[in-house]
C-alpha cells in the first residue's frame, strides 16, 4: 500500500465522516421534518459513498471491494424510496411543511390528478 492510495483512502474516509456528522447536525438543527430529511440525505449519499470509497481503496481489487460497491448501490437504490415514502406518508397524514415559498398553492390538485393520495386541502395551511 503506497502513499498515494493511503492518502486517497484517508481523505475519503475523513470526508465521509465529516458529511456523516454534518448530516446528523442538520437533522438536529433543521426546523421541521422535511428540512431534516434533506439533511439526512447527506448521510445516505456523500457520507456512505465516501466511506465505502475509502474502504474500497483499502481493500484493493478484491471481492471485498465488490461487496462494498454492492452495499453502496443498495443504499443508493433504497435510500430515495424510503425518503419518498416518508415524505409522502408525512404529507398524507397531515404534517404540513413549514414553507417560505409555496409555489404549489392553487396548482394542486391539478396536474397530479386523481391518482394522488394527498388530500386536496393539504396545501391550504402553511405556517
Amino acid at each position, binding site marked *: 500500500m503506497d502513499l498515494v492510495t493511503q492518502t486517497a483512502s484517508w481523505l475519503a474516509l475523513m470526508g465521509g465522516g*465529516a458529511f456523516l*456528522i454534518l448530516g*446528523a447536525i442538520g437533522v438536529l438543527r433543521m426546523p421541521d*421534518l422535511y428540512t431534516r430529511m434533506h439533511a439526512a440525505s447527506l448521510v445516505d449519499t456523500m*457520507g456512505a459513498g465516501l*466511506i465505502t470509497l*475509502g474502504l474500497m481503496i483499502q481493500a484493493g481489487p478484491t471481492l471485498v471491494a465488490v461487496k462494498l460497491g454492492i452495499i453502496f448501490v443498495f443504499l443508493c437504490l433504497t435510500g430515495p424510496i424510503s425518503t419518498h415514502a*416518508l415524505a409522502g406518508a408525512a404529507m398524507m397524514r397531515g404534517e404540513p411543511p413549514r414553507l417560505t415559498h409555496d409555489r404549489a398553492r392553487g396548482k394542486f390538485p391539478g396536474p397530479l390528478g386523481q391518482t394522488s393520495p394527498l388530500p386536496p386541502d393539504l396545501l391550504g395551511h402553511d405556517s
Partner: protein
Amino acid sequence: MFIAAAAAILVGMALALVRAALGPSVYDRILAVNMMGTKTVLLIGVLGFLTGRPDFLDIAMVYALLNFVGTLAVLKFHAYGSLAGPRSDADDPPSS
C-alpha cells in the same frame, strides 16, 4: 484511520439518537431510525476493516436491505393503520 471513521460514525449515531429522543413527531423518529440503520451498515463495514475481518460485510449488506424493508413496513403501518395496505374493511384504526 479506521478509528477516526468509526468515531465519526459513533458521533453521528449519538446525534441521531438525540433526534429519536426529541421526536417530536413519529416521522422524525422513523427518520432517525433510518439514519441509524445507514450508520450501522457503515459502522459494521468499518469495524470489519478495523478488526481485519472484512467478511463482516455480508451482515452490512443484509442490514442495508432490512433497514429498507423495515422502514417501508413502518410507513405502511402508519399510513394505513395496518400492514395490509389501503384499508377497505370495517376495522378500527389504532386509537390515537
